[in-house]
Structure formats: C-alpha cells, structure tokens
C-alpha cells in the first residue's frame, strides 16, 4: 500500500493581471494511518465482491467514527484569517491582547464563539499582519538541512541578514516616474537602512496556511503546528505559491513530530474562472485601446512618406569632418566642395561647398591634431537615361583642401585630398592622406583625382611633384532610396515564401522552374507598368504590389 509522493516542493511563480483578492486555494490534509489504510483496503475488497455478483450481503465495514479528525478540506481566500485552537484560547482572554490587532482578533473570536464556531479545525492561517509571519523564515533557518545534506551547518552572514529583513515595505519616498522627488543621497544612513538596501528585497505580502497536526484530543499545542502552503505576492501581479498546486498529481507528504505520523497534503487552485463572455469583452476593450493609440501615433506623422520620382535614385549623405592631424602648421581649417558628375543633380537650395572653423591643434601622441566635428549633408538624385546605360555609374566626389592661418593672417595650403561617395549604403569612417603640390596652388582642384578636362585613356601625372602631409578623418553615413527597391524587397520576400512552401520538393528542377516563373511574372509586371499612364504609377507603391500579385496568378 505504498503511495507515490510528490517530492517536488519548490515554489511556483505565477503572473496575473487580476486582483489577488480573488485568489482561492483549496487545501486538503489527510492522515495516513494503518487503520485508515486497512479500512480502505477492506472496502475495496467488499465492493469488488459485491460487483462480482456474489450473493452474500455483508454490512460494509467503515470506520466512521471521528472521520473529521484525520482529514480536513478547506477553501481559503487571500489574507483570510482563520484561527487555530491555540489562538482561539489565546485571544479569548482580553488581558492577553496588547496591540490593536490582537484586540481586533479578540472581538472576532468572541463573535465566532457566539455564532456557530469556526469553520476550520486543524487548518488555520497566518496573514501578513501577524508577527509570526515575519519570524517564520528565521525559525526555519535553524533547519538549514533544507539545502545541504549535513545535519549541522551554520547559517551564513548573508542568510542571517536576509531573514532578519522586515518583509513589509520599507519607508519608500514618493517616486514619480522613476525620479525621486525628495533628496537622492542619504548622507547618514542608519544601520537598518544599510541592511535593507544592500540586499535585494522585493516587497511581498505573505500568507501562511498552517495546520495543527497533533492528536485529535490535544489540539492547540504550538509544537504541533506545521507549515502547509506559503503564498507571496508583490503589488505587480506576481504570485508565488510554495509548494506548487498538485494539478492532479500525487499529494505531498508531511511528517510530524516525535510520533512521525505521515499526512497527505493536496493543494488546488479554487479561484473562480472568468466567464468566456467577460473574457471576450476584455479582449475587445484592449484591442480598441491599442487601435486608438496606434491611430494617435499615426496622426502625429501622417501616412505618406516622401518618395523620389520613378526611375530616380536618391542618395543622402550625412557626413562629418572629424579631425585633421599630422600637418606642419597650426590653426587649420578645411575648405571642401562636392562635385556631382553627369546624370546627377542636387536640390537647388543646398550649398555644395563649405568651410569649417579654424582650430588650434593640440598634441596627441606624436602628432598634433585639430578637431572640427563639422556636420554636413548632401542630397543628390541620379536619373538613369538611355544613353548612359552602357557606362559605369559615377559617384559624386568630395574634394577638400586643408589650409592654415597664422597670427599674421597669412594663409597657406597644407594639402589636398578627395573622397568618393560610398557606393554601398552604411557607415564609413575614412582616412585620407594628402599630398601637397609644392608652394603654388592647384588651379583646378579636380586635378587631385581625375581632372575634369581629361578625356583619354591613360592619365599621366609625370612631372608633378608632391609630398605627403597629414590625415583628415571623415565619418560618412549614406542612405539610398528608390522606388525599385520597394519591389525588390517585396519580390525577395515572396520568393522566399514560395521556396519555403516547396518543402519536400526541393529538387533542382522544381526550384529553377519556380524562379523562371518569377522572372516571367516580373517581366510582365514591368511591361504592364510601362504601359500604364504616368500619374497612376506615381501614387503609392501599393498599386505595384497588387499588380505583381495579380500577374503572378496568371
């Protein structure tokens, strides 16, 4: 007749949005005695014999007697105070009550005695207000065999600190959106303040469900009290139940006192469940709330995004001139210009050149460095027309020259350099070495790279003397925008989806046939796009997506 026991006594953490006061827990304790086991066994035998159709009628053996002494089942609400026999006797006596809480208990006990009496017998509770609740962990500290398998071990310093914390809330200052309004620094912390704040302490409300497991004649002895279930909750919806609900598995095992009696413990969640109509209503309310919030956010910005016209690549460069180092003289400034090749156009009201401020250098390591952090940005559009389809795409260039200005207002050139706009969008940190072309200055700064007047095949700089000077550091952030990128992204996603759906048919032939179908559909879509009048296309890109999906089904 050995039962299986549930040995998993760990605590379970639940999260809920509902109020904790709706929590109901059904607790059942049942004693495992030899007579109880025997009587059950006999009952089973008799019943099975009767079912077999035996003609003998016997009186069923039951040990009625005092059934209530050996088992009890109770539904307990959150922070519901149920008195034990010991407490009933204690609080009956008015002289023993000192605190207002005990006086309140005294009144309740008197009322209970006048009425039917309490509904519990063995099972009782300690709520958050009882002083026993706080000292329970300290008592358990003595039995530190919870963690280790040695019978004797001393609690550590940290363990002592944790148990001697008051589990109720500390004096919290008013906090408003995370920023405390009162003083931030405590210049003279007290010992208790230090003890409370050096250790993680989530403010929890606790409740203990206990049972008095002594012999039925001698209820009310404090030594026979045994902790059954501990329920803790913090203000934000976390509920910790130790031990966890049985959920249909085997009951827990409690061994008491000197006599070593064994009891079975079953814990169940008996809270009322929300009706499905209420659940639907709650979901609808949430959904409306979120939609309203999304509408509000959308109304802040508006729904249209600025798009470039069809067939135009918009290029946006956000750059900064960070620093210059390694030059001969002091008080440097940089003069830069942006050159846009053919087929590129910039917006009319932006300037394509700029001058930074003059900066005195400071030594950093072996070199002298000047800091500019000069922000500039450039927006350019590239239109691809038919005649230049064969030639390579030319990207815009940034030319710059570094000059120094001394205290007599003399200006001398320190160096020239160029930087190509990055072709791939992203962030680039570029260092550019310079060269200086002797003391006369360059007439045409584009000579630095490829002169504008150059038309041949080989560029020869024979006879041009230069020496290397310093470095200038740039940070470039580049973004590209075009309508055709929208289709490319959508097509790529659709292709992935279809390939995933292929699944088991992942043969080469099947994959390539799908890809061919895509190419055909895309071509059809492009042809259809060209045939449509212009104003239809320049509206949102939604139309193009619809077109492609329609054509795909053809």
């Amino acid at each position: 007749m050995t039962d299986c026991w549930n040995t998993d006594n760990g605590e379970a953490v639940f999260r809920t949005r509902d109020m904790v006061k709706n929590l109901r827990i059904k607790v059942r304790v049942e004693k495992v005695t030899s007579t109880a086991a025997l009587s059950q066994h006999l009952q089973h035998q008799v019943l099975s014999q009767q079912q077999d159709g035996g003609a003998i009628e016997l009186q069923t053996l039951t040990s009625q007697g005092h059934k209530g002494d050996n088992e009890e089942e109770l539904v307990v609400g959150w922070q519901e105070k149920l008195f034990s026999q010991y407490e009933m006797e204690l609080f009956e006596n008015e002289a023993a009550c000192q605190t207002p809480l005990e006086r309140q208990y005294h009144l309740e006990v008197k009322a209970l005695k006048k009425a039917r009496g309490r509904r519990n017998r063995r099972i009782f509770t300690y709520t958050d207000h009882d002083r026993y609740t706080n000292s329970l962990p300290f008592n358990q500290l003595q039995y530190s065999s919870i963690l280790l398998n040695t019978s004797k071990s001393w609690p550590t310093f940290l363990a002592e600190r944790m148990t001697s914390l008051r589990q109720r809330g500390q004096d919290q200052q008013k906090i408003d959106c995370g920023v405390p309004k009162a003083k931030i620094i405590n210049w003279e912390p007290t010992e208790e303040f230090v003890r409370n704040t050096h250790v993680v302490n989530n403010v929890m409300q606790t409740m203990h469900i206990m049972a008095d497991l002594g012999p039925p004649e001698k209820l009310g002895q404090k030594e026979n009290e045994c902790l059954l279930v501990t329920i803790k909750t913090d203000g934000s919806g976390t509920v910790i139940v130790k031990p966890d609900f049985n959920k249909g598995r085997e009951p827990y095992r409690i061994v008491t006192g000197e006599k070593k009696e064994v009891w079975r413990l079953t814990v169940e969640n008996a809270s009322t469940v929300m009706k499905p109509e209420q659940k639907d209503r709650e979901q609808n309310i949430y959904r409306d709330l979120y939609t309203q919030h999304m509408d509000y956010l959308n109304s802040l910005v508006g729904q249209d995004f600025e798009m470039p016209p069809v067939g135009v690549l918009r290029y946006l460069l956000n750059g900064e001139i960070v620093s210059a180092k390694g030059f001969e003289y002091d008080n440097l400034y940089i003069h830069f210009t942006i050159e846009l090749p053919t087929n590129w156009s910039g917006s009319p009201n932006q300037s394509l050149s700029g001058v930074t401020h003059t900066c005195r250098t400071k030594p950093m390591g072996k070199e002298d460095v000047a800091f500019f952090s000069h922000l500039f940005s450039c927006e350019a559009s590239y239109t691809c027309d038919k005649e230049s389809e064969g030639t390579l795409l030319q990207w815009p260039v940034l030319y710059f020259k570094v000059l120094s200005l001394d205290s007599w207002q003399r200006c001398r050139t320190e160096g020239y350099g160029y930087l190509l706009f990055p072709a791939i969008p992203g962030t680039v940190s570029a260092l550019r070495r310079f060269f200086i072309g002797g003391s006369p200055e360059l007439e045409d700064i584009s000579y630095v790279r490829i002169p504008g007047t150059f038309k041949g095949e080989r560029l020869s700089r024979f006879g041009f003397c230069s020496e290397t000077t310093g470095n200038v550091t740039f940070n470039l952030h580049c973004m590209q925008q075009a309508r055709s990128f929208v289709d490319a992204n959508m097509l790529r996603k659709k292709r992935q989806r279809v390939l995933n759906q292929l699944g088991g048919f992942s043969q080469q032939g099947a994959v390539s046939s799908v890809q061919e179908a895509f190419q055909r559909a895309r071509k059809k879509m492009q042809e259809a796009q060209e045939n449509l009048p212009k104003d239809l296309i320049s509206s949102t890109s939604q139309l193009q997506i619809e077109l492609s999906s329609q054509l795909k089904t053809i």
Partner: protein
Amino acid sequence: MGVYSIYRYNMAELHIIGQIVGASGFPESCLFCKWGVHTGAAWRLLSGLREGQTQVDLPQIGEMAYWSHPIDLHYATKGLQGWPSLHLQVWHQDSFGRSELCGYGYCHVPSSPGHHRISCATWRPLGTWQEQLVQKFIGGGHQLRKPDLIYSGADRYRLNTEAMGTVELELDIILRHFDKYGVNS
C-alpha cells in the same frame, strides 16, 4: 494578449538606444555633459527625452570621466531629410562650484542599423591672446550665443577655436518600415 489590430498605416520609425559613456582628453577632470538631439521638421518624437544633462564625474583613477548616461529615443518620420544629429557640450565644474565650458561637439546619428561606437571630437572657442591669458588664471572663456547656430553651418568659418577632448558614445540603431519606402541603409 498584446496582439495589435490590423495596421492601417506603416510609419517609418527610428529607435536610438544607447549611452553617453564618458569623456577623455580634456585638460580638467570633474566634467559633466549637456546633450541634445536635433532633427528636421518632418520628424516627430514619439517617446523619450530629447535632451538632458549628465551628472558630474570626478575620476579617482585614470583620466577618463564616466557618465553612462542613457539615451532612449523613438522617432517617426515622413521623410529622410533632417536626419537626427546629436549636440554635446562638455562643462567643467571647479572646486568653487562654478561651471565653465570645456567643449562643443557635434555628430550625426548613424543611419545604418546596428551597434555603433562613436567618438565625438570637441573644440572650444578662443578669444584674443589677452583673453586667453586671463582664462588661464581665472577660468571663464567664450561661449556660443546660441549653440543651434552651428546647424545652419554658414557662419562657422568665423570662429577661432582650439581642439579639446573626445566624448565616447555607444548607440544602437533600429529602423522600422524604412525598407517599405525603398530606403537602403
């Protein structure tokens, strides 16, 4: 729970999440930083603080002042122009409690998604040599009348400055729905 209803629109959104780590290379320690983010007209701040001030940090060991000041911004936009940029002012608080300017720094918020480590260089305006001598003894010094003037960029060449230290930032950039409008970054 928490499932949103059908989107009707898709706004382009930008998240900037990161911290101002600290500053180094300044002649004085005991520094704090005032920072702010500047955007174009098409950008709307959905949540987060667009400017702030760090605490004063006095390094005990080493010379880098650490602030670890959080930056958490959520923008929505109608266009790519006016991409956000960050402006920083590093100030020094001396033992008498006075504050003096140590440097201005400016940098663009990166446009490619991911983790970025940014070193923003700073500079300080200089006066005449007499004013510089006075500044060496009793502090003070010139400040920009309106730091926002820098963004227009036109008058910058008039300034005479000297190089100061660098401010370290770590920023994580998250873009949303930009690819639906054909933006590659």
